[in-house]
């Protein structure tokens, strides 16, 4: 009988007894769709930045004049590292290696957290320098964009801690590691946003 099969569906595949949808399991579709809305959110922030900057080019200091490039370069590097550790974790659990998964996840959490730490350090120094949100367009856009990116990283770290906890309790297997893949997508997206931000905010 069909239902004996349906009873143990391959959860990493589209729902079995349904029309063929996106061809992957629901959580993955959902995350990609959610990322769509995230794209639009950052478009509002980054777009406003571009528009304001084009209108008032002189309101921005030259690269390195105000912002501390070396520190953020390190931070960028950190985020890239966390991305690769994340994807390594995913690869590990694809092979059903739970211990490796746990290790890579912990690494990701730590690196992600340190990114936030560095950003807080950067903020405090900038504020000491008198570079504050109310300083002008420069400050307004800078803190809003990087701040909300940092907020996303923080959220990511929190979810990641939850996933790590589940990994620690051996909830993920080669057959079902949806949580790992889905949080990974989010994490890489946040990394991707930073890649854009780093260029347009710090280097241009």
């Amino acid at each position, binding site marked *: 009988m069909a239902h004996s099969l349906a009873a143990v569906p391959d959860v990493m595949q589209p729902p079995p007894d349904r029309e063929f949808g996106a061809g992957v399991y629901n959580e993955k579709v959902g995350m990609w769709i959610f990322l769509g*809305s995230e794209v639009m959110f950052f478009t509002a922030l980054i777009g406003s930045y571009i528009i304001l900057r084009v209108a008032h080019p002189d309101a921005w200091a030259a690269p390195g004049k105000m912002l501390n490039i070396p520190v953020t370069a390190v931070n960028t590097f950190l985020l890239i590292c966390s991305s690769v550790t994340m994807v390594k974790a995913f690869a590990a659990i694809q092979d059903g290696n739970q211990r490796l998964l746990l290790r890579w996840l912990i690494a990701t959490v730590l690196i992600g957290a340190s990114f936030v730490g560095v950003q807080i350090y950067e903020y405090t120094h900038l504020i000491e320098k008198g570079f504050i949100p109310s300083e002008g367009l420069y400050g307004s856009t800078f803190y809003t964009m990087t701040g909300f990116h940092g907020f996303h990283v923080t959220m990511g770290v929190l979810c990641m801690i939850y996933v790590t906890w589940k990994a620690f309790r051996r909830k993920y297997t080669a057959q079902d590691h949806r949580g790992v893949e889905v949080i990974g997508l989010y994490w890489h997206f946040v990394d991707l946003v930073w890649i854009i931000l780093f260029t347009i905010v710090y280097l241009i």
Partner: protein
Amino acid sequence: MATSIPRTGQGGGMAFGGDAHAHHDDRTFLRKYIFSTDHKIIGIQFLLMSLLFLLLGGVLAMLMRWQLGFPGQPLPAGGGMLPETMAARGVILPEFYTSLVTMHGTFMVFFAIMPLLVGVFGNYLIPLKIGAPDMAFPRLNMASFWLAVPAGFLMLSGFFVEGGHAAAGWTSYAPLSANSEYSGVDMGQKIWCVSLIVLGLSSILGAVNYITTIIQLRAPGMHWFRLPLSIWSLFVTACLVLLAMPVLSGAIIMLLFDQTIGTHFFLPPKGGQPLLWQHLFWFFGHPEVYILILPAMGMASDIIANGSRKPIFGYTSMVLAIIAIGFLGWGVWGHHMFMSGMNPTLGTTFMISTLLISVPSAIKVFNWLGTMWEGNITFHVPMLHAIAFVSMFVIGGLSGVFMAAAPVDIYIHDTYFIVAHLHYVLFGGSLFAIFAAVTYWYPKMFGKLMSERWGKVHFWLTFVFYNCVFFPMHQLGLQGHMRRIYDPNQYEYLRHLQPLNTFISISAFCLFTAQIIFAVNFISSWFRGAPAGNNPWLDNGLEWTLPSPPPHGNFATVPTVYRGPYEYSSPLVEEDYLPQDRQLPPSPGAPRAPARPQPPLMPAPHPSSPTH
């Protein structure tokens, strides 16, 4: 018959997941009715919430209408209850009036019509109509509702804070909204922002859920082009919400920062741009107005086909029209900014795109007419409202064409002509469709029939008084009567319009009173309505094959779909409807059995993970 265990994403890594059990349900009252993950309960929860806010929006409108109809006169009742900051000795104050306008618009758009269309029917109809056990992410769904409620009450709280509620219009134009020194409103303005950010999050979670569900959980045989138009429109609407809402959130966050931590996004002194706010707001705002009409169009289509006992006319073009509106809707926002000082050349392009967008709407209108043509029209209450929807939307749409022509908009922009337009599309369009939809699916939701007689009384009173209220507003606008003014008599050239304003107000009070009939009918039918049975309207949709109200988990066995939802008066059967899941004996000309899910699930052409 294979019973399938509904497997809508059992506990993913994140907050996703949650499992619906089709077998007997043993949930506590709290999990069943309050923190339920059942899309049907959540839909009904949304219904009650948004009807309450609709009522509130109506009350605010009545207060406005009193001031406009009887300027400077103390409120006939309850005026004493209002604090001095709102009404001095019962006479509404200018600052309170601006809050009234703002909050009337805000509540109606964000907390009444939007949740009514998307929250209620998105939730209730999608899984039932596509043959799914529940939403793809039931717990996310619950979260979305329990974010909307606090947002609503937060917005409500604004009335009771120091300095009164937000008073910069529902469009909250900066700098008025950005700097409390200009508006005299501080806390209220911030509450407006925070509340809408929360609501935005709620709607986005909802949209993710709807889109995923429609893509992933369609029952076998429910191809894209067998989906009911209500589902199609809800799908496109969800996409609009998904992409438009975050832009509003982003803009509002910047506005909030301008108000609180002194940023300069929209404040000119240090280079901020008031027009940037308008661009961001309307980039969200125009898709938003289509969010407010598309589901209405879709559900009206379902009901008109049913009422006419005839297949919908031009199903494919209806679908394409929905999609076209969904896309074009992103390229027209500038038509709200013709007078804003925006680059005039930009104005020309926006004018053309705006005019073009009326074509898909035209297609829909004509197809509705085509559906009724040579039909066998039953005038049940939902059908009456659906017909009113068509005729009133046409008026609203056509008045839109006047403003789309930029030179004419020079004159009518920000006059009551706009107010007339927006009420013809939002009340005459959306709200009539909502009345239609509520009365249509009420039996399914509560298992009881609403009173047809009182339904008809409510319909006719609403229809007549509605036109008495909003049609003359066109004339007001043509005489140059501006929007959002507390007392038109300040202007000599508007004084002679006072009688018309008074007439409008009196009609408005009657209109409001007529709504009490609906409220009473709605509530009393819940208790002493006649049992509905499975399929009171003899409809083809999958939801009507279920008992009313449907059990938790909906379908005991996954239904198989053999045809589109509009097979009324089909020659294949002697009764005049043919449910989507009825299998006919293979006779010549009979629609063939559904194709098996294609392409075959396993093995996937591309493995969905980098394994090869």
